[in-house]
């Protein structure tokens, strides 16, 4: 279970949110909504352990986690605003490098299959430089599909995706929840996930 207790964050001298307590159970997704600048990204970065909260704690599997804690780094997959792709490397090399960085061993055939899932198999040997924004996003989805991590933190995952891409994203999240995974997503889009598994948090 992922929990926060009395979490507060601020940017500069302005408070983004305070007294935030949330709970995400296994197999459930939390959709974080709110206008621009209300702290959705900051919340995700705090949950991932990339940023230190102003006050409050994050608990993962019943234990307090500090930023960059090993227990969190082994369980989380964080998809931020930035795609973490190298223009010089091909789509296939990018995916293989990111999966290897996450500590997972993956055969080249698996990488190809993951690219096929997100309909990028024909672009596998193209450098990431020539991929469109949506295709870059899809490469991020391929990473979700192959990195078997329990906790998904997704920052605006639907941005730049076409209708097929959003359907794919929704299916990946639904499958992940079905397996008992956790997901927290900051999003403006409504994702067609089973309502029994979804809770919404509106930041203001």
């Amino acid at each position: 279970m992922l929990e926060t207790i009395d979490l507060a964050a601020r940017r500069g001298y302005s408070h983004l949110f305070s007294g935030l307590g949330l709970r995400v159970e296994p197999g459930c997704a939390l959709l974080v909504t709110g206008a621009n600048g209300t702290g959705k990204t900051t919340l995700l970065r705090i949950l991932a352990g990339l940023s230190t909260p102003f006050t409050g704690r994050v608990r993962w599997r019943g234990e307090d986690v500090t930023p960059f804690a090993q227990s969190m780094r082994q369980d989380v997959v964080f998809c931020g605003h930035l795609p973490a792709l190298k223009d010089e490397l091909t789509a296939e090399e990018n995916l293989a490098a990111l999966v290897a960085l996450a500590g997972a061993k993956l055969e080249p055939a698996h990488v190809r299959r993951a690219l096929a899932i997100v309909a990028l198999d024909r672009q596998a040997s193209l450098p990431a430089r020539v991929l469109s924004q949506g295709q870059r996003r899809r490469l991020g989805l391929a990473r979700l599909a192959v990195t078997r991590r329990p906790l998904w933190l997704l920052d605006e995952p639907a941005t730049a995706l076409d209708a097929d891409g959003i359907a794919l994203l929704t299916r990946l999240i639904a499958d992940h929840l079905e397996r008992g995974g956790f997901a927290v997503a900051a999003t403006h889009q409504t994702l067609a996930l089973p309502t029994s598994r979804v809770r919404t948090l509106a930041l203001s």
Partner: protein
Amino acid sequence: MTAEPAAGTLDRPTPSLDSGVWSGVRWALLRDLRLALRSRAELGVQVLFYVIVVSLFPLATSPEKNLLALMGPGVLWIAALLASLLSLPRLFANDYADGTLEQIALSPYPLPALVSGKIAAHWLTTGLPVVVMAPVLGLQYALGGEALAVLTVTLLLGTPILSMLGAIGAALTLGLRGGGSLLALLVLPLCVPVLIFGAGAVDAVHAGLGATANLSLLGAGLLVAIVGAPLAASAAVRIALD
């Protein structure tokens, strides 16, 4: 939470993940080397820069043999320092800009291991060419065989220290405006001892003292840097991401 938790496979701590130190070093080293090979033009620019800086001094000063032999080691060392500095701003900045650094910091591999791999790749692509070319470039300065050998050994021991000190500076200046020039101000003074012991070794040989003392000090500095620099650079990377 109203939903019933699903009985699944993921609600358990992730089993045996590869989080070894050496795997982390290898990942970062191989990836950075591959990236460097994909942009060979940049590598060529650094090496050419080194060659040109070294070759300018005899043209600008005097072709007098004794003077050149006196200046040579210092010039080669300063050029090595500048060549190392030329590529340092990109050591972390590219990864920072495209989000890779976030993924690196969230990897199960220890961050100092990944940083060590990146530093090693930086040295292999900028330091090693400098060391390899030193004996040839040293000929322009009428340096004898023994002096050239000592000079090359000092560069072999010293350039990794430059890469490691530089990595700390590069991590500390991440995300700052004008980070590149600040980096130079930050790193150059720290490199002074390396420069003194490195360039001084050849003088010591000329003076009949032998280079052992200088080489030992450089070696000691290298060991301290290997232990300390990845930790310091990792801490700076985490601060930059926060």
